[in-house]
């Protein structure tokens, strides 16, 4: 058991740990509330007149970026769910030995796809999208994002599907329900936790994705917020306040998701992540 001195040490360590993660976040917000002049004069000032001027400037020029981000993230999330939920369902039903073998092969393939580093897919996808006339278009980028996130989504959903008792399916079968009916009446309603988890994770990831965005969208088009941030970042500049305001905008959906579903997200990730 934990002795008293250890307990005290733990409290201190916990607070240090919290600060190590909290302070950089606060630094983003703090800097985004400064003006360029203030940042140029003293980038580390703690006392200053907070202003929303940077946000006004960023949003003024970045409405298009936000719209692009919303389009991408919404499309990617919807398609990943529409395609991923049935797939996770099919990959959890052990109905025959032959099908079990198919499941094993597909699962191994999904694991491998999940492990392919993104710079390794960005090179060939560039040429694949180009030859299918999808390079430089939003649908092309969306399809690439879907393929990037789908394996992860299916793997994350599967433990939730497996947790549904098989007796329910057997009962439905006795009542003469087709596979589609059991999917719609049993799986989908009982999967709400899993769907919310995957929905949040996919939305956040596609909102923050930038490697595909900066490579697959042509120069001069409206980049999503994350792409804009990446682009601004690579140009050498000391426009830190602008960068940090963009960083806040890029993290906004995550913040919203966190406010609504923090506990569900933490539990869902612990359930699905290592399994």
């Amino acid at each position, binding site marked *: 058991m934990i002795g008293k001195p250890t307990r005290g040490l*733990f409290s201190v360590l916990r607070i240090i740990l919290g600060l190590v993660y909290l302070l950089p976040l606060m630094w983003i917000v703090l800097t985004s509330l400064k003006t360029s002049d203030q940042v140029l004069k003293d980038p580390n000032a703690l006392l200053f007149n907070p202003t929303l001027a940077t946000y006004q400037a960023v949003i003024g020029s970045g409405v298009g970026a936000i719209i692009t981000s919303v389009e991408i993230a919404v499309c990617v999330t919807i398609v990943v769910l529409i395609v991923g939920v049935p797939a996770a369902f099919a990959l959890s039903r052990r109905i025959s030995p032959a099908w079990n073998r198919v499941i094993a092969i597909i699962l191994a393939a999904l694991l491998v796809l999940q492990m392919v580093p993104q710079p390794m897919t960005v090179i*060939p996808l560039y040429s694949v999208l180009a030859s299918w006339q999808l390079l430089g278009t939003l649908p092309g980028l969306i399809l690439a994002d*879907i393929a990037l996130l789908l394996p992860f989504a299916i793997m994350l959903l599967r433990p939730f599907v497996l947790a549904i008792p098989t007796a329910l399916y057997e009962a439905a079968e006795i009542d003469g329900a087709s596979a589609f009916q059991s999917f719609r009446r049993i799986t989908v309603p009982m999967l709400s936790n899993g769907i919310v988890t995957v929905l949040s994770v996919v939305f956040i990831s596609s909102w923050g994705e930038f490697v595909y965005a900066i490579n697959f969208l042509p120069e001069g088009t409206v980049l999503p917020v994350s792409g804009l941030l990446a682009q601004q970042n690579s140009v050498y500049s000391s426009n830190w306040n602008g960068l940090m305001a963009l960083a806040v905008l*890029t993290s906004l959906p*995550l913040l919203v998701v966190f406010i609504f579903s923090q506990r569900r997200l933490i539990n869902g990730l612990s359930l699905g992540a290592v399994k």
Partner: protein
Amino acid sequence: MFFVAPAVVLLVAFAAYPLFVLIRMSVSDVGPTNIVGTWHFIGLANYIQVLSAPDLWFSALRTLGVAAMLLASNLVLGFLAGSILSVGGRVTNVVLGIMVFVWALPPIVSGSVWKFLLDDNGAINGLLHVVGLARVSWLSSPNLALWSVAGIIAWAALPFSALIIRGGLLAIPRDVIEAAALDGAGYWRTQFQIALPLLRSTMWILAILTVLYAFKSFDFFYVVTQGGPGTATNTLPVQSYNTAFSGFNMGLGATIAVISMLFVALFAIPYVRSIRSESDE
């Protein structure tokens, strides 16, 4: 079962087929002019060129260095953080919430803020200056930049491993821990001699995931240093990306990508095996 068909079609077209294209690229002469068009088959010329240049081996060493640092951080610090966070009340929940939030932040965001914090005139150096220490060129010194970025990645990855290890610790039956306490074992002795061995399979999977993560890590390098200064932070993924998109040699970039995939496969095989044996049970 056609429930799985749409997913398979999508993944074959936009994930599996590109991998095939990647391999074809690696044995062809592909540049920006003929990216759409015919590729000349040049056999293993790209491989010979890449493997005989020292750059690739330096990149591989740097990638292994990052992997080693991440392993130390994720397993050792992860175990300590997981232990600290497996007890306690409201403060624990708040700290856990903040950490998971940071872990879920897009790397472009957490990378940007660290680029700012570690800038020569950034807040970390400002802090060092205030306490009377010399400023450090975290990101502009070729010797230090790699470790600075590795540190940023470790910071961003720690919440995940702490969360997983914490989950494992909480799943250990209470009476096992209490029995050890009755025998007079102190807290850390119990943690290391009873809890740690019970977590062996979790730690093992975490270790493989960490190495894979190191070989995948690209976003942070892209955001913070883009491989620089010079080639000081060129890891395998960074070198392959830069060769393809900054050096405009797609074929050579693809070759480096294939070679680093072979490294990934080396670590991926035991992982896939362990997952499969688990799901077969």
